[in-house]
């Protein structure tokens, strides 16, 4: 498994290809990419993501290890950026590899649900009119209960 926290953009295609290459025992690879979404009606100039260096890496490693153990994954990858991004930029990706697709999909959803509300990242949206910290949603907390 690999966990990466970085400010720089990542190459989703190269990461996905590298992750999927070289394994003959994994029949399924699932990838998810999170992208900076514009505000409804447009106008988002930038998003800044703050994080807690040290705790971020620990929290992501713990969540990823749990996913690997629980779904017997062959491998898992989490890349999460911080700093300033613009609409359309890639924020993060997860990839999971398992012998069968059900485990790969479920593990990827588990990783997404957990890192959304248990990894120490905070998003702030900048538009011409306002600077707003993105509020956590109750649905995100509820999503953890199914696991």
């Amino acid at each position: 498994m690999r966990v990466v926290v970085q400010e720089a953009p990542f190459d989703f295609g190269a990461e996905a290809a590298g992750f999927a290459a070289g394994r003959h025992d994994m029949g399924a690879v699932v990838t998810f990419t999170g992208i900076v979404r514009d505000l409804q009606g447009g106008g988002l100039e930038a998003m800044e993501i703050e994080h807690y260096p040290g705790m971020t890496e620990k929290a992501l490693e713990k969540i990823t290890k749990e996913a690997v153990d629980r779904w017997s994954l062959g491998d898992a990858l989490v890349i999460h950026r911080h700093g300033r991004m613009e609409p359309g930029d890639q924020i993060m990706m997860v990839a999971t590899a398992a012998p069968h697709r059900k485990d790969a999909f479920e593990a990827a959803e588990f990783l997404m649900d957990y890192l959304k509300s248990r990894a120490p990242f905070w998003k702030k949206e900048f538009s011409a009119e306002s600077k707003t910290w993105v509020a956590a949603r109750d649905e995100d907390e509820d999503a953890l209960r199914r696991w």
Partner: protein
Amino acid sequence: MDVLYFAWVRERIGLPREKVETEAATVAALVDELRAREDRYAAAFEDLSALRVAVDQELTDFDAPLAGAREVAFFPPMTGG
């Protein structure tokens, strides 16, 4: 111990981290001490249900003991992904 603030908690208090001399036994007792300092702390810690806390980089709750703790961080609910 080091006390860290993130996101709007950092903005409201006006600094990202500081050294705090404290004998507080729990996170809640530390919060009471900070609240008593100045209005900006009282404002940041007004509603604890809007805050999360980590002790030594592990999420915990406001009843958590501080014995031996080196680092306490306060922040709003996380919005990763």
